[in-house]
């Protein structure tokens, strides 16, 4: 007969208060510890200056900018299409999603974001969801490794490899995909791509279940994550957190649901939200998000216009010579297409004067592009609202009170990428 044992778990506020009380009379000499910029747990080049009292952090000052390349300045000096490769290098764990975000922003400026061909919308959604899985897998693998669970890294990287293969099949590149174009895609997906995605979904669900059995109820994992780095609902909104970090704190906000773009309103999926806002909630939200992404992928595979092989020859690009490049055959045989090609390559897509902001639900959170155009093929000002930058600003609030050994856990659960943070 199975024995039932009760575990006493008070509510999170009481637990946190009790922990703070325990530490209250322990006040000693302060020590300053420099963590990073080159540190395995800071996932790139984040530097945090920690002030310690024994092993307890009393003050944390994150220092970013080590990967600053001036992407916003670069964007002002080139055409809209030329900037697409730079978006690969924002969130380099999910380049496909950044490509889609940027293309949609420029399309919004042009006023064509709702007129994209349906096949293009479905392919873009599939790219976004594959990118989401890929980014969460890396985040989870590195997070597990920082907390001592090295097996996870090997499991998640096996799955990520398959996504890289899919990206390569679609765009020709594994990392620097640059798959989208203004008004469409670089090219249609190859005929056997959908079958490969289906196979990936089947295999991935098994692998994810294995990761779950290794972590979710693992005593060490739960003890290290629970009540560490608690972000309350109000604090998350106040600090402008976005993505899984905002939802982990219990805020029901997902741009795919609340401001639907592409074909997300035709998709059935749930938004997981946390209850406490600690590292464990953020971990659970990401786990569930990956499962929901697979659900979206399966629906896309079912509904994709033109079918898997596109025998119906559904277009993937907007049929407007002033926005997308004409086919090479036509360029070489027709005067009008030749002129369009020449103008698009030399001057860029002619955007109307105006300003737009487009926020995209990227794996790390809301990746927003603000574009100010004075007309012509070059943005006057392009601002990238990067989720990692905003998410990291909460560190100086969350880290004080944690132990030094909690820093990798908090960083891993916030899941940032410095290429995007520093731009």
């Amino acid at each position: 007969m199975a024995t039932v044992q009760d575990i006493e778990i008070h509510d999170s506020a009481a637990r946190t208060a009790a922990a703070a009380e325990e530490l209250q009379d322990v006040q000693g000499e302060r020590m300053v510890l420099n963590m990073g910029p080159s540190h395995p747990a800071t996932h790139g080049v984040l530097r945090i200056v920690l002030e310690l009292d024994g092993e307890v952090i009393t003050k944390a000052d994150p220092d970013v900018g080590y990967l600053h390349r001036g992407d916003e300045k670069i964007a002002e000096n080139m055409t809209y299409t030329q900037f697409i490769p730079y978006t690969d290098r924002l969130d380099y764990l999910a380049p496909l999603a950044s490509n889609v975000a940027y293309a949609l922003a420029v399309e919004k400026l042009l006023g064509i974001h709702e007129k994209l061909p349906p096949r293009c919308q479905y392919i873009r959604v599939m790219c976004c969801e594959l990118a989401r899985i890929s980014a969460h897998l890396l985040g989870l693998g590195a997070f597990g490794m920082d907390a001592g669970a090295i097996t996870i890294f090997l499991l998640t990287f096996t799955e990520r490899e398959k996504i890289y293969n899919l990206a390569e099949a679609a765009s020709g590149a594994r990392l620097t995909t640059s798959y989208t174009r203004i008004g469409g895609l670089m090219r249609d997906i190859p005929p056997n791509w959908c079958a490969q995605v289906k196979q990936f979904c089947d295999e991935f669900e098994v692998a994810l279940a294995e990761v779950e059995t290794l972590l979710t109820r693992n005593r060490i994992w739960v003890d290290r994550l629970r009540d560490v780095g608690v972000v309350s609902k109000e604090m998350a909104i106040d600090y402008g957190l976005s993505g899984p970090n905002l939802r982990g704190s219990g805020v029901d906000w997902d741009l795919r649901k609340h401001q639907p773009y592409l074909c997300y309103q035709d998709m059935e999926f749930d938004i997981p939200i946390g209850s406490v806002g600690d590292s464990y909630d953020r971990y659970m939200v990401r786990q569930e998000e990956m499962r929901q992404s697979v659900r979206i992928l399966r629906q896309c595979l079912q509904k994709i216009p033109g079918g898997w092989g596109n025998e119906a020859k559904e277009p993937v690009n907007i049929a407007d010579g002033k926005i997308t490049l004409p086919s090479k055959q036509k360029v070489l045989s027709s005067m009008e297409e030749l002129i369009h090609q020449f103008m698009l390559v030399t001057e860029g897509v002619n955007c109307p004067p105006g300003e737009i902001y487009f926020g995209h639900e990227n794996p790390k959170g809301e990746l927003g592009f603000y574009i100010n155009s004075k007309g012509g093929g070059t943005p006057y000002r392009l601002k990238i609202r990067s989720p990692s930058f905003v998410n990291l600003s909460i560190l100086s609030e969350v880290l004080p009170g944690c132990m030094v050994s909690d820093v990798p856990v908090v960083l891993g659960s916030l899941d940032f990428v410095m290429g995007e943070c520093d731009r």
Partner: protein
Amino acid sequence: MTALESANQIKARFGDLVSEPAEFRSEITLKIADAEKIFDICSFAKGIGFDYLVDITSIDNYGEDPRWTVLYHLRAIGNGTEFRIKIDVSEEKSEIPSVLPIWRTANWHEREIYDMMGIRFRGHPDLRRILMWEGYPHHPLRKDFPLAGKPTELPGVAFTRVTPMEGGPFVTLPSSGDSIEREPRVRVPEQAEPGISDKRLK
């Protein structure tokens, strides 16, 4: 409540200070006449539900007066409406009140604008550079800061003083020439000072 209704509510409260809501691609933009009032308007906006500050951006209108435009992108998480507030700041002043007491996310956004454009935020407790390093003398997102290697008609004011890392791979040299000539990577070996690489050539 739609974004337009909220914008009109702000207009009704502050009167002539706020322009008529402008709409482009179904986004609402409000222009504020007096930059000093930005704090009051933002606190009022937060009071009517705009609890989420998405972003703060600045634009350099080089050659125009006032030179700077600062934009605040607000959102109400409750009902998903959003709108934008726009203020102009003159170059002589280059200072506006900080909205940090209203939304703490403004902290890093304001530091970034100070770093990139040189606009100061009055009342910000920790206005340091964030992406560039402490002591860097320029504000790189200004329009008169040319991109290395790109021909420009703008005067070379950005590099009148010696820049850190001068002669490095991405830093132009100070001179009266245009930025193509100042680009270290395009110098022909004859003009270059004899260095290790030249000796190796011989």
